């Protein structure tokens, strides 16, 4: 059923008895055109665009737990396209454009809120780097402005301008950046895909790939074997584990990233703010909680939890730029597992195994990429060639020396 003010009113008078499940709970069929492994944001978006844009709706999304249980359900909800390199910028700009029309497209309010993102800078070299980046953005058609200290002071008077170890000199703002209600993204895509015939199979864990003579023709699951012409894997965080079943080693390490939310507060932050002399990014949710994060813990981990040093480091950075938050309280912290790739950029590509496709390596920036990732992965699955904004995300780029390294950190995943 379509969601609207009218349907809400009608149901309000009807005791809300008429609402139907947002998606079906079907039994697995024996065969599909495409199987997507992973019912997170990227997997669900892929299924949605396969059905909506590429007319392929014999599609199943296989999720070992409940959909949206991975990083789409636990992140700091930021969307932006403030990237530097031409392998990245057009892709993230495509994503931002998709965000802008997403809710009307899939008829679900994911609260795409473009209240802006400000990256603060604290030194001349950092300003130079931001100007370079801002110009990259403008060249690809994205919005970007460099703000001076006074403008930032007017927008964010609560920042520490006068007593800081690393004084704020200015910032890069992307006004179209912002936040999205993360769970709703998974649910909106799931509902939209389901309405277009996609089977969403929860509690369906892939235990093996069916690979014969170098061709993948389906998967084994705890609910039986399921055949497909093509299998796309979108299980960021677990990519290494899952692809090991296909005998592949990846240019990826799994790391833990913690995220944090405070108790609910009346609105104080205008948009997303990031610190340039420490690692800290923060926004305020529509419920009032400060949602923030910083560095990954820095060691390989699948444990989905982190440790105190990063908690303290993040709070120190937060206090360093906005000392008014000291008296608010940290309510909840959690750790998610990330596909940290060797150049900090993702992979959307075929694998050496025919019929097996990979969407992985999102580091801890995958949420904002969800729509474009789904779109480009769907494009690849449908047409067997990369979408034009995702041509640099090839698996063989490390072998060729064509890394897409925004930070210049090199082949050490915990530095990206």
């Amino acid at each position, binding site marked *: 059923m379509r969601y609207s003010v009218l349907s809400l009113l009608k149901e309000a008078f009807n005791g809300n008895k008429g609402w139907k499940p947002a998606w079906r709970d079907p039994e697995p069929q024996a065969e599909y055109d495409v199987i997507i492994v992973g019912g997170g944001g990227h997997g669900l978006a892929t299924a949605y665009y396969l059905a909506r844009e590429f007319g392929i709706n014999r599609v199943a999304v296989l999720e070992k737990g409940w959909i949206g249980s991975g990083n789409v359900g636990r992140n700091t909800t930021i969307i932006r396209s403030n990237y530097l390199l031409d392998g990245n910028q057009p892709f993230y700009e495509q994503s931002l454009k998709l965000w802008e029309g997403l809710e009307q497209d899939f008829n679900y309010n994911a609260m795409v809120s473009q209240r802006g993102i400000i990256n603060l800078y604290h*030194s001349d070299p950092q300003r130079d780097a931001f100007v370079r980046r801002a110009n990259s953005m403008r060249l690809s058609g994205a919005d970007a402005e460099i703000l001076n200290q006074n403008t930032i002071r007017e927008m964010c008077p609560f920042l*520490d301008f006068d007593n800081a170890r690393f004084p704020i000199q200015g910032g890069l703002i992307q006004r179209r950046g912002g936040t999205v209600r993360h769970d709703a993204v998974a649910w909106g895509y799931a509902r939209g895909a389901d309405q277009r015939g996609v089977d969403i199979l929860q509690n369906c864990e892939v235990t093996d790939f069916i690979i014969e003579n170098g061709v993948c023709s389906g998967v084994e699951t705890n609910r039986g074997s399921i055949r497909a012409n093509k299998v796309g894997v979108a299980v960021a965080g677990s990519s290494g584990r899952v692809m090991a079943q296909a005998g592949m080693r990846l240019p990826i390490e799994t790391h833990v990233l913690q995220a944090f939310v405070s108790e*609910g507060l009346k609105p104080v932050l205008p948009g997303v703010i990031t610190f340039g002399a420490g690692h800290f990014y923060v926004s305020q949710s529509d419920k009032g909680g400060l949602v923030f994060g910083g560095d990954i813990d820095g060691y390989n981990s699948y444990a989905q939890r982190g440790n105190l040093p990063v908690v303290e480091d993040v709070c*120190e950075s937060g206090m360093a730029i906005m000392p008014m938050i000291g008296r608010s309280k940290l309510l909840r*912290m959690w750790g998610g597992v990330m596909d940290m790739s060797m150049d900090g950029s993702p992979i959307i590509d075929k694998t050496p195994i025919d019929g097996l496709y990979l969407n992985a390596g999102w580091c801890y920036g995958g949420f904002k990429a969800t729509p474009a990732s789904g779109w480009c992965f769907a494009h690849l699955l449908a047409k067997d060639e990369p979408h034009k904004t995702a041509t640099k995300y090839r698996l063989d780029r490390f072998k060729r020396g064509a890394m897409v390294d925004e930070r210049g950190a090199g*082949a050490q995943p915990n530095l990206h």
Partner: protein
Amino acid sequence: MTQKNRIGGGLIDQNRSVQFNFDGRLFEGYEGDTLASALLANDVKLVGRSFKYHRPRGIFSAGSEEPSALVTLREGAYSEPNARATVTEIYDGLSARSQNKFGSLNFDLMAINDLLSPLLTAGFYYKTFMWPAVFWEKVYEPIIRQAAGLGKLSGAEDPDRYNKGFLYCDLLVIGTGPSGLMAALTAARAGLRVIVADEDFRMGGRLNAERYEVGEMPAADWAAATLAEFMSMDNVRVMSRTTIFGAYDHGIYGALERVSDHVAEGSGDVRQIAWRIYTKRAILAAGSTERSIAFGNNDRPGVMMAGSVRAYVNRWGVAPGKRVAIFTNNDDGWQTAYDLQGQGVEVSAIVDSREQTTLLPPKGVRVVLGGRIVDTKGRLGLKKIILSDGQDVAADCLAVSGGWSPNVHLTCHQRGIPVWDDKIVGFVPGATLPMGMAVAGAANGVMTLNACLQSGLDAGNSVVEALGRTVSKSKTPKAQDEVSAASAFWYVNESKGRAWLDLQNDITAKDVKLSYQEGFRSVEHLKRYTTIGMATDQGKTSNILGLAVMAEISGKSIAETGTTIFRPPYTPVSIAALAGRSRGKDFRPARLTPSHNWAAEQGAVFVNTGAWRRAQWFPKEGETHWRQSVNREVLATRASVGICDVSTLGKIDIQGKDATDFINRVYANAFAKLAIGKTRYGLMLREDGLVMDDGTTARLSEHHYLMTTTTANAVSVFRHLEFCHQCLWPNLDVQLISATEQFAQIAVAGPNSRKLLEKIIDPEYDISNDAFAFMACGDITVCGGIKSRLFRISFSGELAYEIAVPTRYGDSLMRVLMDAGDEFDVTPYGTEALGVMRIEKGHAAGNELNGQTTALNLGLGKIVSRKKDCIGNILSLREEMVRNDGLRLVGFKPVDPAMSLNAGSHFIGVGAEAKTSNDQGWMSSVTYSPNLETSIGLGFIKSGDQRMGEKVRAVDLVNNKSVEVEITSPHFFDPEGGRLRV
């Protein structure tokens, strides 16, 4: 000022009156009161409004699980939002305010939301506010955000100070109820180093809230005596007001101690301390939390937890109502009736959901077995309850007991999953516990007093034994096991009114039903769709009810339905405490150069370069713009002599028989044949073939080198070299040590640099051009015997030296050079002038060595040796990295010399549209060259080395600037390098 509901007794000091203020009204309480107990004593029932519907909220509990009684404490910058009244100690002058109201607390305008509740169901916002798209940020969201949140931040800097600390112990005991005290007692007596922590300001847990006897004395007295024994022991640290908020890896616990939250601000003490406690073992004895029963309008002020009502009566001498009714599904609820009656408080009814019980009703109290409360009345506070048979019972307080849930939270912090226990009707800790943790008492599902004491003793003794001490033979003190039969009854199905599960976020049983109906059936989906359990109590009071309702609808057991797990922190922790002193100017330490004080005396302007603070330029009187100072410094250096503290460069001392071999492997250019007494430029690659760093390395003797690195990479290069040595080539005879902080190093640059140095160098050393040619190095002495090292290297492009002395002489050396240089008008220069001169010379620096560039990009492709094994040379040959049309570092000059250049500009062909597909590269560094009297820049452009003289545009869209520039050699000044060698 009368405390209408104060009945006397309890553990407060009625001789010590405390005045405080709530919503502008002055009240009196006693020392030992919480804000909640004092408000109840003064008959204040309504203390706040709920999140979504702005329903009236009162005091629900007596502990840290409180979901309703949230207030803002103190004033101005000291304001603390969302403080729980139930754990706030009152002190003279405390001011507290209610939250989340528009208008007054009694007449909250936003309460209109409550009328719209059929529309504002769980997840309603996902279904609307989508049209038109632009309205979200402009109209809908601002309205939603206005209503968001509970308390308000002041917007001012937190004026308090916070500390961090580290503690070590054999055993950490978390919680000081009967099991915690018993566990700590036996461990302490066995000689273990024990830390005992409790969140409460009065330790003892439920022993302070019940009328038990332990060891033939009142339970609270036994607790006090036991604590007194701890205080007398050197091996025990007693920490009250300390919440163990998280269990981390390898026995490390996070703790928050509230040092001065219970006294007026400005006490001079730190406010809170965030401790990291390193433990060998921990015993979780955190007790249990009482849970509610859902029924119609069960959220009115006056509806409270039964055990909390008992706590107010017994510990604080306060009757939460004049006429109290009880609604229970278990034996423990009855105890409340006995205790109330014992204190002379009227009990109007006991409604027990069970059909039968062997318990004896208190005299004169109406008992309804198999009873159901379906509704309550009273707009701003409870007046009566309605039973399923339509009868009503007058009550201004309803004590509800739905049984007790073990406080398993910390057992989940490493992803342990609690398991359902039918016997106690609740979740108990699962099999996988954090390393070194054991659980005792009610937290482990042991629900009666004597059994808790025994459980604590056993857990304590297990630790004693495990850590190799002798277990004492002492037994638990004498105590009774109270009746404790529990039953599973969660929700009065026949209620017509809304039955509230989460009192803060306003989640009702209907919301859970809707969630199920719409397919959000896993517990995680339920939580996310309805937001149940996301309130500040993190589900302590609501989760189990939500699960129970979901289980009932889906026809499963709660065990099958499952549970979400608890994450840190156990209770909310102020962000400032976790930051400690690392804020403001002390956010990170600053490294100062050896000549810092001297530079400060000269009035230098300083700049942060990483952790260092360096002199950026030295303004002179009359100079109004930094550019004037910098130009002067550059011109003076090139005309005569300038000096600059370059101690921040990384210095690595490398010695050993294989030192030459080692250096030859870590640098990409040839290093096997560097002569003793010579210095060479070194280019270091990462193993992936990109440039890691550059610097110079001097060969001081056969087996002794000194390597310099850039300031930014000093630490990472040293780490890398140690990796190469220890992990790759362990048998190379080489030793490395960082000498960055051991030497002060000063650049002396300019045509008169030799003359200046000759004045301070001891006469036996000859530094003439013949004796000490370009790139020479050697040990010398200065100023009459001070050992130092001299390197004839140049970043400025002038005849130049760097002279190094032990750090303690750095300040003097600077002063000596200034004095000796007077006749040459020696000029100190800062990092800006340094930057100008290096751009004039086309040297790459941080903006170019950004981790994205290859030697080929930098124009240094030719020096990378292909004839040796060195880090990075294999992967530097990958096809995409050796393309002819790749980026090359070149120079840029504006065609119109009057135009300035901007770093960060991109290069676009003249006449081409500024868009990504026409992007040819970028400008990395720019400066105004006072020697060339024009702006110049370094930058990377495709095939730049083959395009000398070509004109392109340097486009800076964000600064609305487009400058036509000519591609030139990066060596703007003295390209032949003649000035270096004179």
